[in-house]
């Protein structure tokens, strides 16, 4: 393919100065597109990986009602992932759709937070992870419903109604197990303790998030944190549990630095489409 002539900086300056005012006349802003793509990958990968994780419970949950709940939450999350990753592919403009992004990227290209890839552990650990994630996602989507990108806003506004349900269910279980028997209480405390070090990453303001915030594509993370902390405090109080001791945060998921767990999850998730690339449903 012949390459396009290089853009000289002075041309670019002129182009910027003479940018016309009409909404559809503006040149495609490459930086804006790159930032939007990056944030869509983060959103889509969070939902995809946690959806896959919860799917592991299918047929193994403590009761049939819980089994249904976890599978339903997983379904909602996979639905979110489909919307976010399809849009990411469209924004990227290289012919990849949501399936291509989900099934034909490798571990280092995933942008999910570390919390969602953590192993299910026991039921208490799964519910601890769910509360910590859904309480964040609920507040995040509330804000993203006013995103400067109307397609992102539409997905967030649609999904937030479902996420409210996830958060409520997880909170009920944290309370029930925390304020339960000695055994259930100890397990819930352990579950929260395991997941706690991955919470700061949810509120990390790295370069991409800061840039996205400036473009109206990502909320103020400090504000998000305030609402989140208040909610957790209420739930933990009702569960008669203390918040886990502060731990050294572990970061890196947003830049593709993942735990070993993600590789195993992806191997299972991607096996079929990679083995039979043309298989259709």
């Amino acid at each position, binding site marked *: 393919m012949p390459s396009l002539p290089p853009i000289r900086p002075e041309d670019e300056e002129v182009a910027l100065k003479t940018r016309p005012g009409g909404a559809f006349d503006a040149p495609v802003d490459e930086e804006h597109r790159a930032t939007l793509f990056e944030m869509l990958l983060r959103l889509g990968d969070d939902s995809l990986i946690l959806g896959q994780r919860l799917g592991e419970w299918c047929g193994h949950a403590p009761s049939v*009602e*819980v089994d*249904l*709940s976890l*599978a*339903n*939450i997983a*379904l*909602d*999350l*996979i*639905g*979110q992932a*489909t*919307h976010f990753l399809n849009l990411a592919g469209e924004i990227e403009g290289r012919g990849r759709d949501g399936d291509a992004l989900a099934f034909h990227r490798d571990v280092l290209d995933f942008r999910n937070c570390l919390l969602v890839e953590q192993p299910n552990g026991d039921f208490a650990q799964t519910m601890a992870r769910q509360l910590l994630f859904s309480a964040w996602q609920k507040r995040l989507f509330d804000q993203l419903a006013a995103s400067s990108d*109307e397609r992102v*806003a*539409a*997905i967030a*506004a*649609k*999904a937030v*109604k*479902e996420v409210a*349900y996830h958060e*409520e*269910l997880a909170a009920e279980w944290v309370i029930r197990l925390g304020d339960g028997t000695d055994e259930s209480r100890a397990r819930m405390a352990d579950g929260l303790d395991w997941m706690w070090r991955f919470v700061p990453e949810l509120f990390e303001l790295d370069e991409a998030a800061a840039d996205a915030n400036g473009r109206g594509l990502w909320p103020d993370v400090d504000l998000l944190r305030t609402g989140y902390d208040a909610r957790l405090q209420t739930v933990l109080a009702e569960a008669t549990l203390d918040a886990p001791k502060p731990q050294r945060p572990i970061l890196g998921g947003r830049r593709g630095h993942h735990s070993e767990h993600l590789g195993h999850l992806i191997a299972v998730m991607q096996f079929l489409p990679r083995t039979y690339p043309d298989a259709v449903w």
Partner: protein
Amino acid sequence: MGVHQPLNASRTGALWGVLQDVPDPEIPVLSIVDLGIVREVHDDRVVLTPTYTGCPATQVIERMVREALDAAGFDSVRIETTLTPPWTTEWITPEGRDKLRAYGIAPPNAPGERAVHCPQCGSAETEEISRFGSTPCKALWRCRSCAEPFDLFKCH
């Protein structure tokens, strides 16, 4: 070609009629119009919205609508999907609510209504068994009067 093409004036009316006969694949007693997921009907396109983001029926519904439109001679009518505004159970029509009840599914509570009535015996002495049921849109409930379990279409 012998295919009946309604006059333009009644074209949207005829399209509504076709869509009224497309059942929801999960709850076939309801049509997609009863369910409130047909948002707009124009001469050249119909606009659908999904109930839940991950609802697996969404693609099936689109295919069924395509087939129904084609069969009625509306093969040039496009199908579009929108997420905005998000679907709510308040869009289920009064007829749809009656059909749900007759089918054994408690319809979603109207705004402000608190008690869930058993679709079998009408009793308000009911309790939740599981927040999530057989499909994303339903929860599992039980009637304490007649002891029957039943699905509740969740308020959404």
